[in-house]
């Protein structure tokens, strides 16, 4: 399979009021790979992730310079439609955030928004998405139950399935296991490794990045310090700051 660039950040800077959260980020993310963003709290990794599907649009007083391209088309250009972009770029959040609805209705939320209405079609979508999130066998008899009755780990995989139901080109995950116990974390990590889709994951956990990602980007104080194949970055970092961080000297 030929890899191609799916996301390209061009000189991206981002400001919250006077505070500059990101400084001239240039980055290319390849398709069908797992890309991890690591760095200490407040380094800008989550901010950058949320720029990829325009979830920072609602932050009052925020400002962006530069542009981001997805498959060559601008995310922030005049022609860009944030709703359309969010349908192509799925997102899973830090805490499981299912809707207070049944598992079935949670998964159907996205497809219904784009006009899938027939029950038979929705049934297929639900099964496909839950199988893709490796949750089908656990919940196939509970589809009418409230998603709130599931465990935290299962809830997070419902959220993954809900995002997958729209068949996005890419999935963004913002510290998706930070609210989960070790067993649930292992299941989500296992899913990420086997998913075979383009995933960008923000994690505060370096071991997690090392375990599951193909490439890793290290952010520090709003800068992209180093970006490369995960094995290389962890075994022979080029930058002193990267080495200090991964060896635990700060962070």
């Amino acid at each position, binding site marked *: 399979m030929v890899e191609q660039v799916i996301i390209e950040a061009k000189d991206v800077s981002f400001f919250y009021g006077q505070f500059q959260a990101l400084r001239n980020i240039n980055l290319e993310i390849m398709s069908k790979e797992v890309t991890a963003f690591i760095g200490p709290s407040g380094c800008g990794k989550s901010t950058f992730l949320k720029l990829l599907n325009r*979830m920072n649009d609602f932050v009052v007083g925020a400002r962006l310079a530069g542009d981001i391209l997805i498959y060559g088309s601008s995310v922030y250009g005049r022609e860009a439609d944030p709703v359309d972009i969010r349908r192509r770029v799925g997102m899973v959040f830090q805490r499981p955030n299912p809707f207070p609805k049944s598992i079935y209705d949670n998964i159907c939320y996205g497809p219904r928004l784009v006009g899938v209405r027939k029950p038979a079609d929705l049934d297929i979508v639900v099964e496909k998405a839950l199988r893709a999130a490796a949750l089908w066998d656990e919940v196939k008899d509970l589809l009418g139950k409230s998603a*709130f009755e599931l465990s935290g780990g299962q809830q997070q995989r419902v959220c993954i399935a809900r995002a997958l139901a729209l068949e996005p080109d890419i999935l963004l995950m913002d510290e998706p296991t930070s609210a989960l116990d070790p067993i649930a974390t292992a299941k989500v990590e296992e899913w990420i490794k086997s998913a075979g889709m383009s995933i960008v994951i923000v994690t505060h956990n370096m071991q997690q990045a090392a375990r599951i990602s193909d490439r890793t980007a290290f952010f520090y104080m709003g800068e992209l310090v180093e970006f490369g194949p995960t094995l290389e970055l962890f075994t022979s970092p080029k930058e002193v700051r990267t080495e200090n961080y991964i060896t635990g000297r700060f962070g």
Partner: protein
Amino acid sequence: MYLTGYTKTARQRREKAALLLIRSLAGLVLTVLAAILVYILVCGLPTVNWSFLTSFPQNAMTSGGILPAIVGTFGLAVGSMAISLPLGFGAAIYLSDYAKPGHLVNAIRLGVSNLAGVPSVVFGLFGLSLFVTTFGFGRSLLSGCLTLGLLTLPTVTASAEEALRQTPLSFREAALALGANRWQAVRQVILPAALPGMLTGAILALGRAAGETAPIMLTAVTAYSPILPDSIFNEVMALSTHVYVLATNGNNILQTRPQQFGTSLVLLALVLSLSLVAVIIRAKLRRGRKW
């Protein structure tokens, strides 16, 4: 290790004293409430029977029933909710999910809460000059509903906004990240989640609308009506004003005491049953919605 200044038994004694205080305060409140209810029940129950509920007042209102007042109060309560719920919920959605935070929104919020503290007779005067006189609706069910609608609007708006703001931000994020626009997120996710809380405010407002006296005396009510209203432009009788009229006017105030208590009891029962409907709807909505 921290050493507290007093011993374990002293600590336990304080704990017990606090508990006793809180319990007796709660008990006091409940006792007063129960006393009022029992008093009205005991004094009112002998009067209330089927013909009292279904017939018109007779002999200059010293005997007979209160049917027109029941119909009037029911119409005023339901009609005012029909006005204040859509307006109040709409304003609450605007304040919680659309308005950019800033001076304007804060001013609106302050205005709403101040409006909730305005005496009801002021609303009555406002309704009298605007709806009855200027708009020419006259003293009518419509004028009364509009006035009570405005009167309850602040309560409805403030409590609905509170309920909306209590729904987690993560619901909004999740909906938007799945490609919903703002209105879809509000309508499909936020509103269903907040509706039970919003109805709590509506229940309070409903009780208030049904019990108000001064504003409807100025805008909607007639002391005596031999017929039931057949249009929103008719004057109506109401339970609260009926009690007022019986207790203050006429030659036989003492003789009509049973009617006064009977009417009060019916008013209480009407408010309770209207609230009960709202409580049942709320319980239905709440089922399976935990977070």
